[in-house]
């Protein structure tokens, strides 16, 4: 259960980007999480809701987009994506596979309210 540590560094990144844009309010935070990232989405949300109080992201909604696990199959040589952590080729059923993608823990984008610039 290290989601609190992760959200702490997420908050720092959000604050940095908001300050750079001179934004007072962040309204939406979009994360992309792979099944091998080692985090539990609903725990991330709980941690986010705990930490966001009295920050620039106080009213922000956290959106978690799950990205698939991608497997290279050494038997049928296909690359396939699967939503579950199951190391079995969805094409031919072989267990002779290798994970090539799936540990993403990315802050994709932020939506924020920024002051109107000079007309």
């Amino acid at each position, binding site marked *: 259960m290290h989601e609190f540590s992760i959200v702490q560094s997420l908050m720092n990144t959000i604050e940095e980007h908001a300050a750079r844009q001179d934004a007072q309010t962040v309204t939406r935070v979009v994360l992309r999480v792979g099944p091998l990232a080692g985090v539990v989405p609903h725990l991330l949300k709980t941690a986010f809701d705990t930490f966001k109080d009295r920050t620039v992201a106080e009213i922000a909604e956290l959106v978690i987009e799950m990205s698939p696990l991608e497997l290279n199959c050494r038997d049928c040589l296909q690359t396939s994506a699967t939503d579950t952590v199951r190391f079995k080729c969805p094409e031919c059923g072989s267990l002779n596979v290798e994970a090539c993608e799936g540990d993403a823990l*990315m802050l994709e984008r932020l939506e924020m309210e920024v002051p109107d610039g000079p007309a």
Partner: protein
Amino acid sequence: MCQDCGCSAGSGRKIVEVQESVLASNTSKARANREILKQHGILGMNLMSSPGSGKTLLLEKTIARLRDRLSVGVIEGDLETERDAERIRSTGVPVYQIVTGQTCHLDAFMLHDALHRFPLDTLDLLFVENVGNLVCPATYELGTHLNVVLLSTTEGDDKPAKYPVAFKNADLMILSKMDLLPQTDFDAARAIRDARIIRPSLEVIRLSARSDEGLSEWLDYIDGAVQRLRG
């Protein structure tokens, strides 16, 4: 945003494409740690496993066998107590204990702080004994050169399949407590197969720190890594 009623008059909505790893600050601190190790010519090894798989006993045995030819140091990570540090200290090598409190892993910042308090000048080899936990430590790169995961025969051969994240960045898996194998249903071939699906390049050593089985293979692995680092 309007300070009076909270409406969005006087401001605009902006979408910023960030595309940055949430762990970016840890990654850059890990890079700094790697640089410190490089400047001192030290090989760094990060030992990870469940609690009770035999990390500290393995370190005690390893230090006893290596100390004539390599200068070894240990940084210990635990939620509470200095017990592991005391065990290592009694071997006579420098040791520093990181007490993490409620934090279930070491991160690059904690290691960085410890490196600054450690006598690095004379070291050849630094072991980092991570917090006993097969889940969280794997998410945090420390900046060490090699990740070693211990899996004891008494834990069961299903652990690589159940805890894939722990094995995804491992360089070496040590199957520990091999002396207890006859008392268990542990299927080493199954554990190795499952772990290599996640990490195809994973090396494996079967070891018992009690009977010394596999110990010389482990020492050869360390010597080889030290030699590669020295180029």
